[in-house]
């Protein structure tokens, strides 16, 4: 089985010797992909952050493997997107099979001109290592291993944590605590919070195997295949000749027995048709679709699996977690710097609730299709599969997991509704697409690289002097960026004189066919939660 991928040193902090708890602006609990992203996002915005993690190592097990375009764009801002993209297996195509035959193939990103692929597959610990390297390079980010949070006093204007270390317990205060401590979140328990939702009966065997195979870099999903009758199966390629396999098991299967190599190996042999592989990692899980009713409790903000848990088919776990903290980072930084009212934080809860509900809905519907709960439900599912070979409508109902896409915030108080009629382009609240540009200096680049850390105004023509201070102008036109392939014009319906105000997390705040400075100022004011 897999060895530890990287281990880190516990170091005693001077904070541990303080008689009165030292107060920090932000403490992040958990150094997984979500916690590390949260901390880096804030630290890059100039907010000092402490991360506490109860372990001192990463790489025990593979866990998440699919990282989406939107997540990679966030990692790019954190300085490790290109490295991860190049180290991972890029993919956008998938195939769905039933019994011996192929039902259909799909392509998640059929168009060119995006810096990041639809998805990469890469082991979670490789992502964590890249984020840790970045975190350690930031002077205002203090990463503390072997620091286990065991208690909290959650006050109206701050929280005090009690932390267990190899040198004994200490206390540390914070303006805000971000709990990214995973699906089993001890912080949820400490605050006595319910985690309601649905737990499904069916079990899935999940395994990473090492082999040299000539399957393409595609997501392959089978309903009722000859090698695993009655169940479903998934095959996904990772770097370094590692393949992810998921096999559905009966609800009654004994997880401990099924996990034994002598039971796992024959199942995988039947699937692959050979025995030339080694098992790297095995686990058994049940689908769970759960969420906290509210993501903010006093000064504690929940993100990622600690806030909401989905089934894995769809890659909505780690990806939605990174989108949580991308949404949170700029808001919390603006509040802490006094640039936005504290009330802006409530929109983290409302916007990411909308996203969590969308993800849970997809996840629940996929689960219903992949693992019917009764013969009555299986009958309907099998009917859809039978009709899907011939009929388009049934094909569209076949659901082997709808893959993670960023949520468009439809009802956000931060969005300025369109005053004009737009035929195309991302609406207020929606995430923006990427595009290929050339800078005035003749350098080829992507839109996603030109937006800067704050708000940006994507404008075609227009007067740069009219752009309010603090907003990065991205001006398409003669003396600005060149829209090399007409992708800005097409994807944004950006006519001369029009503009998009883009939030720091890459969602549209407002758009105008004709604008003046007060329009942008008003939209910016609204996007920052009103008066500061």
């Amino acid at each position, binding site marked *: 089985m897999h060895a530890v991928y990287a281990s880190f040193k516990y170091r005693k902090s001077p904070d541990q010797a303080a008689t009165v708890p030292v107060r920090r602006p932000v403490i992040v609990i958990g150094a997984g992909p979500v916690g590390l992203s949260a901390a880096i996002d804030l630290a890059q915005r100039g907010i000092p952050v402490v991360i506490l993690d109860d372990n001192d190592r990463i790489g025990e097990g593979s866990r998440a493997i699919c990282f989406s375009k939107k997540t990679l764009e966030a990692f790019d801002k954190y300085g490790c997107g290109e490295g991860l993209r190049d180290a991972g297996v890029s993919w956008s195509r998938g195939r769905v099979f039933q019994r011996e035959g192929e039902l259909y193939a799909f392509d998640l990103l059929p168009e060119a001109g995006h810096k990041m692929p639809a998805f990469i597959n890469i082991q979670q610990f490789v992502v964590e290592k890249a984020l840790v390297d970045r975190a350690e390079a930031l002077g205002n980010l203090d990463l503390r291993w072997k620091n286990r949070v065991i208690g909290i006093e959650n006050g109206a204007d701050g929280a005090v944590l009690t932390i267990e270390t190899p040198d004994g317990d200490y206390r540390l205060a914070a303006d805000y605590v971000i709990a990214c401590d995973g699906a089993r979140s001890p912080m949820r328990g400490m605050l006595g919070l319910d985690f309601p939702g649905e737990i499904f009966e069916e079990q899935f065997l999940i395994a990473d195997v090492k082999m040299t195979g000539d399957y393409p870099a595609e997501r392959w999903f089978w309903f009722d295949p000859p090698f695993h009758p009655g169940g479903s199966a998934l095959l996904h390629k990772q770097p370094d000749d590692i393949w992810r396999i998921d096999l559905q098991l009966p609800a009654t299967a004994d997880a401990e027995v099924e996990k034994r190599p002598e039971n796992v190996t024959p199942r995988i042999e039947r699937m692959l048709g050979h025995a030339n592989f080694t098992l790297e990692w095995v686990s058994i899980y049940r689908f769970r679709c759960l969420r906290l009713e509210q993501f903010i409790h006093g000064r504690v903000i929940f993100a990622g699996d600690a806030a909401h848990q989905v089934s894995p088919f769809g890659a909505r776990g780690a990806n939605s977690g990174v989108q949580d903290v991308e949404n949170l980072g700029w808001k919390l930084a603006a509040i802490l710097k006094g640039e936005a009212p504290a009330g802006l934080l409530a929109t983290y809860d409302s916007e990411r609730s909308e996203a969590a509900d969308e993800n849970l809905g997809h996840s629940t519907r996929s689960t219903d299709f992949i693992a019917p*709960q009764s*013969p009555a439900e299986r009958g309907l599912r099998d009917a859809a599969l039978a*009709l899907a070979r011939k*009929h388009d*409508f049934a094909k569209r109902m076949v659901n082997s997991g709808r893959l993670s896409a960023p949520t468009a915030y439809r009802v956000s108080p931060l969005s300025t509704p369109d005053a004009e009629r737009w035929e195309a382009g991302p609406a207020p609240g929606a995430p923006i697409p990427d595009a290929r540009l050339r800078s005035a200096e003749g350098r080829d680049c992507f839109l996603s690289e030109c937006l800067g850390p704050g708000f940006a105004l994507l404008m075609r023509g227009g007067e740069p002097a009219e752009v309010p201070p603090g907003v990065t102008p991205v001006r398409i036109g003669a003396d600005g960026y060149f829209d090399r392939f007409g992708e800005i014009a097409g994807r944004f319906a950006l006519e001369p004189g029009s503009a998009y105000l883009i939030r720091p997390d890459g969602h549209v705040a407002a758009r105008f066919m004709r604008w003046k400075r007060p329009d942008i100022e008003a939209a910016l004011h609204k996007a920052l939660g009103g008066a500061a």
Partner: protein
Amino acid sequence: MKENLKTGATLTTASRFPDPDRAFRLLIEARRGLSAEEAAALDARLVLLLANHIGDEAVLAEAVHAARETLGRE
């Protein structure tokens, strides 16, 4: 393809729901907790309701053919 000579209607098998997953979920939820026999009885009622809603014998005949075809019992 049989065509209703009066109306020109034929069975539409292109996808029509804006979100087919939600439509499917609605049908799954309708049978949640039912036995196979009860689900078959539910389906029979649904068939009659929807057949009447379509109200076109030629289209209905085409749907019957498409369904039986995938059973291998045309």
